[in-house]
């Protein structure tokens, strides 16, 4: 059991004031963007355990970014900080005036990482993109990420432009957690089989507490949707509403949430409901009352399939670690047929 409960060390680094703690608070601690100005500077390393998808615990090390701290990370603390790292998230401030120096520091970090955890994933967020005029954003972002890539040694890195003021933050973090979920292919295989069965245009799985997109599948028709950033926007919309619900029912955002949401319009029908303990499922199906009700019923049945799987020894519906046996595929198949 313990072996499955893997703790994955995630380092969050970057220059002082680049926005590391702000984004951590928004994504994992239910802050809203305007609240983060209350945050002070991070001193040394703040450790936090973030539960994601229930059984995936991220061991998040928020590393204060002042030069003095950076030096100790690279010198006396080197082994302690950089060993067993699963993911390094490095945050660049787009407005920084010392780009070369930032890149030098980044390169030093990367060298240390190569020494102690050569297999870590590296994500670079080019943050505070909202400060750049919209028409220049793409160009400046591309220039900056090319520079970053050139200093990343052998690591294959992913870069995202982000801002806490819009959905791009959700996009970046959804990209990060997507890489961290160990049995994603199983989940995706199940979802696409399920989407086909109920004839859905799109099926999205959201993580419960963060409302980040875990994964999604869409049909051929659903792929034609012109709104390419819809998943991040959904995260943003639903999280904003969660805050509103918490405020008005006098509870904390962490304990607020939705049991179920049905929406029927002449253009589409949407069902949002709890799927496993830690996920919401979001179905988009074409209009048609009867077809919609069938899809909802099927979702409920599939959910039962999952909870049975959970009861028979797997900690959550989604089996961890990645399946080596064909049973998992069969179990998922049954759920889809149900």
């Amino acid at each position: 059991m313990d072996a499955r409960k893997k703790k994955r060390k995630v380092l969050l680094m970057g220059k002082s004031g680049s926005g590391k703690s702000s984004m951590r608070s928004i994504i994992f601690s239910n802050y809203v963007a305007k609240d983060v100005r209350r945050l002070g500077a991070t001193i040394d390393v703040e450790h936090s355990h973030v539960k994601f998808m229930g059984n995936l615990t991220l061991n998040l090390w928020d590393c204060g970014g002042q030069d003095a701290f950076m030096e100790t990370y690279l010198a006396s603390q080197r082994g302690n900080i950089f060993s067993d790292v699963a993911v390094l998230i490095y945050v660049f401030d787009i407005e920084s005036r010392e780009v070369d120096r930032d890149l030098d520091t980044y390169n030093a970090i990367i060298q240390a990482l190569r020494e102690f955890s050569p297999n870590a994933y590296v994500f670079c967020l080019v943050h505070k993109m909202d400060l750049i005029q919209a028409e220049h954003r793409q160009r400046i972002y591309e220039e900056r990420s090319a520079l970053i890539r050139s200093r990343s040694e052998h690591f294959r890195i992913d870069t995202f432009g982000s801002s806490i003021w819009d959905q791009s933050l959700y996009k970046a973090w959804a990209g990060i957690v997507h890489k961290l979920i160990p049995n994603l292919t199983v989940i995706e295989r199940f979802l696409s089989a399920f989407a086909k069965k109920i004839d859905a245009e799109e099926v999205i799985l959201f993580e419960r507490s963060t409302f980040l997109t875990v994964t999604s599948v869409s049909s051929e028709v659903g792929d034609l949707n012109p709104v390419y950033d819809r998943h991040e926007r959904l995260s943003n919309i639903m999280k904003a509403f969660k805050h509103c619900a918490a405020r008005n029912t006098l509870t904390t955002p962490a304990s607020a949430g939705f049991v179920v949401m049905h929406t029927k319009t002449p253009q589409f029908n949407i069902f949002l409901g709890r799927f496993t303990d830690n996920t919401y499922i979001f179905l988009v199906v074409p209009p048609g009352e009867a077809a919609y009700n069938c899809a909802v019923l099927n979702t409920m049945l599939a959910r039962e399939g999952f909870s049975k799987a959970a009861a028979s020894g797997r900690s959550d519906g989604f089996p961890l670690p990645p399946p080596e046996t064909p049973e998992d595929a069969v179990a998922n198949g049954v759920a889809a047929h149900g």
Partner: protein
Amino acid sequence: MAFPHVRRTRSMDFNKKGRLSNPCLLHRSKSSKTVAQLSLENILQGTTNTAVSGHSRVILEPSVKPRDAKPRLLLMGLRRSFMDFQVWDFPGQLEYLEPSFDLEDIFGSLGALVWVIDAQDDYLDSVARLNRTILTVQQYYPGINVEVFIHKVDGLSEEYRHDAYQDIVQRITDELNDAGYENAPVHFYLTSIYDYSVFEAFSKVIQKLIPNLSTLENLITTLGNNCGFEKTYLFDVLSKIYIASDTRPVDMAAYEMCSDYIDVIVDISELYSWDHPLRKHKGEQMQEAESHVVLHDETMLHLMEMNKYLCLVSVIRNPEAREKKGLIDMNCRTFQEALNDVFSRSWEREEEHATE
């Protein structure tokens, strides 16, 4: 705005869903902001300008007048909203009581005059100016509602807020009484843009101009009692002003949740209301949108589109009512018919007038 959230830039009308013929409405443009947004911005502009002591806004009844040479600012004609209101936003420093302004042009066919007072500033000038305005206008147009927004109260402590309110009310009513003008139709509201009070206040202003308000309120109260609704609002989707509600006490939490729930549905509609020949229907369904959500504490929010402009949103806490979703839907449909009856009459009358 301090918080440029995606929601704030939304421009999509909830009722379109592809039935819409005018494609430009699907794109974001400055002109398609909601009334409330514009109102807020203008309140901000007016009150941050130090030269402005009193900043007035005028809401006019229909009929677009041709622009003439006189300086005035026409904010917007809400052609796409539920009622054809024109909102005129007056620069505070404008001395419109001077003879060079045509009073008839400004105040004729006026429904309500909204006067915004900055409660954080020295308001004596503004109050004096307001009194002058009321006394002048009242001579010629006694039917105008004067609505005083005591604004920016978020910066004041609870106690001081109350004092300021009392003081302003006292000064205005005393002055009007001295001038021999008693029981004037002047109403006061404490407002702030950092909560929903300004929406609430505008809702009340608009409601006074709606001809069938009591009929609507009765209908909604009956519906609410029969369906076990805790609180029900009839919203103008675009502005999120409610044009009628049941007669239960004001419940800001319910208003806030209902209004944000409309946002959710509008925003989601924006993501999934795209047209493509391959998108096929799979059967019969009602033409109006319907949505409900159950929250963590078992509260249910129920939303139903009524017509192009209006939707009915209710808060349901009664566990028995939640079980009877079918009945609730049916009752809401019945209400919808009644509502459209009420309005079709007044619209027919207007059309008759227009054709005469």
